[in-house]
C-alpha cells in the first residue's frame, strides 16, 4: 500500500484527484495604510516643484559631465589587453611566479585574496556579517514589527504551503539538493586548486538550502536549522577565521614562522590556511544566504 504521503501522487497519476479540503482560513490581503493623495502632495507646493526640477536638472548635468569626463579619461588610459600596462607590474608577476611556493595555492586569485591580501578579505566577511545583523535588526519579529493581521496572514501562508505540498517538486528537490550541496562542497574544497572558493561555494550551498526550504516548508527546515544553529555556525566560523588570521598576521609582522605546512601544491590538503579559511567563509556565506532568505520571507530563521 502506498503511504498517505504518496496517495495524492497516485491519485494524480490515475487521473481522479480527490477534492481538496481547504483547511486554511481565507483572509483578505492587507495592504498597509497608504494615502492616495501622497503622490500628488509630493509635488503640490510650488517651492517643492521648483526644487524637484532644479534637482533633476542638476543631477542630469552632473551625470553627463561625469560620463563625459570618464570617457575622456578612458581614451587616455593604458591600452586594453596589452601586456605592458602599468597594472601588470612586479606585484602581479610575483603573485604568479612565487605564489605557488609562498602560499601553496594553484589558483593565484585564491592565494592573493586569502594570503597576500587577507586583511581585505577579512573585512569583506565582516561586511557580510554586518549585513545579516542589519537585516536581523530590521526584520526579526518583535514588538515593533508585528501585527495581528500579519500574523494570521503568515499562518495562512504556512497552511497553504502544507496544503499545496507538491510531491513531484519534493521528489525532484530531494534528488537535486544533494547534487547542489556536493557541487558547493566541491567548489569550496577546491578553492585553492580551481576557480571558485569559499564565497561562490557558500552561495551555491545557500541556494541549495533555500531550495529545500521553499519546497519542504519551514517545519522541515527548522528540524535541523534553527536560529541557534545559525548563530552558532556563523559566529564560530567567523571567530575561527579571525583567530587564525590574527595568529598569522601577528607571526608574520613579528618575523616568526607560523609553523603551518604548505603541503604539496596541487593536492587537496595543501596551501596551509587557505583551505581552512575557505571552509570558514563557505559556512558563513551559506548560512548568511539562507538567513537572508528566511528573514525576508518570514522574519525569523
Amino acid at each position, binding site marked *: 500500500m502506498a503511504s498517505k504521503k504518496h496517495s495524492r501522487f497516485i491519485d494524480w497519476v490515475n487521473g481522479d484527484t480527490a477534492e481538496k479540503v481547504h483547511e486554511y482560513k481565507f483572509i483578505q490581503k492587507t495592504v498597509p495604510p497608504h494615502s492616495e493623495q*501622497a503622490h500628488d502632495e*509630493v509635488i503640490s507646493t510650488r517651492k517643492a516643484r521648483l526644487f524637484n526640477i532644479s534637482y533633476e536638472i542638476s543631477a542630469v548635468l552632473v551625470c553627463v559631465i561625469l560620463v563625459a569626463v570618464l570617457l575622456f579619461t578612458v581614451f587616455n588610459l593604458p591600452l*586594453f589587453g596589452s*601586456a605592458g600596462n602599468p597594472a601588470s607590474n612586479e606585484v602581479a608577476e610575483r603573485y604568479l611566479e612565487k605564489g605557488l611556493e609562498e602560499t601553496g595555492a594553484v589558483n593565484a*586569485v585564491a592565494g592573493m585574496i586569502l594570503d597576500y591580501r587577507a586583511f581585505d578579505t577579512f573585512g569583506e566577511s565582516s561586511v557580510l556579517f554586518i549585513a545579516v545583523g542589519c*537585516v536581523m535588526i530590521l526584520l526579526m519579529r518583535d514588538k515593533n514589527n508585528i501585527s495581528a493581521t500579519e500574523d494570521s496572514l503568515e499562518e495562512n501562508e504556512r497552511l497553504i504551503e502544507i496544503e499545496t505540498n507538491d510531491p513531484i517538486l519534493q521528489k525532484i528537490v530531494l534528488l537535486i539538493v544533494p547534487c547542489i550541496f556536493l557541487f558547493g562542497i566541491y567548489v569550496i574544497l577546491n578553492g585553492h586548486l580551481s576557480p571558485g572558493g569559499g564565497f561562490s561555494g557558500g552561495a551555491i550551498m545557500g541556494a541549495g538550502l533555500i531550495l529545500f526550504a521553499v519546497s519542504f516548508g519551514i517545519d522541515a527546515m527548522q528540524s535541523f536549522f534553527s536560529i541557534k544553529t545559525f548563530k552558532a555556525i556563523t559566529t564560530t566560523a567567523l571567530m575561527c577565521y579571525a583567530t587564525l588570521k590574527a595568529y598569522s598576521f601577528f607571526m608574520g609582522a613579528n618575523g616568526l614562522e607560523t609553523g603551518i605546512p604548505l603541503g604539496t601544491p596541487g593536492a587537496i590538503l595543501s596551501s596551509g590556511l587557505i583551505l581552512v579559511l575557505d571552509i570558514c567563509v563557505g559556512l558563513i556565506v551559506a548560512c548568511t544566504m539562507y538567513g537572508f532568505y528566511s528573514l525576508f520571507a518570514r522574519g525569523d530563521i
Partner: protein
Amino acid sequence: MSDFLQSVIAYRFEIGAVILFGIGFINLLLQKNLIKKIISFNVMDSSIFLFLASQGFIEGRIAPIITGANDASLYINPIPTGLVLTGIVVSVSVSAFFLALVQRLYKKYGTVNFDEIIMLAKKEAE
C-alpha cells in the same frame, strides 16, 4: 575617423563600463522607485567591476590557475579579479540590507516611492 573607431574597438569594455556607470548613477539619483534604485546601484557597482577586470585582462593569456610553468607571461593579472571578488560580496551585502529596509518601509508607509516616503516622514516629524 578610423583612429577614433579603432580606439573605440580597443577600449570596448571600458566604454561599455562607463556608459553603464552613467546609467546606474543617474538612476540612483533620479529613480523614485526604491526597488529600481537598488537595481541601479547594482548596475553601477558591476560596471565598476567590469572596468577593473578589463584592466587586468591581457590578450592571449589565460586565467591564473598555475598548473603549468611558473611563468608570469602565460597568465593574466590576478589582482583585479581578487579585488572584484571582494567588491561583489560587498555589493551583495548592501543590496540585501537595502531590500530589508524597503520591506520595513513598505509595511509602515504602504509605498515604495522614495519621494512619498520622505514626505510622509517629514510630515510625521512636524
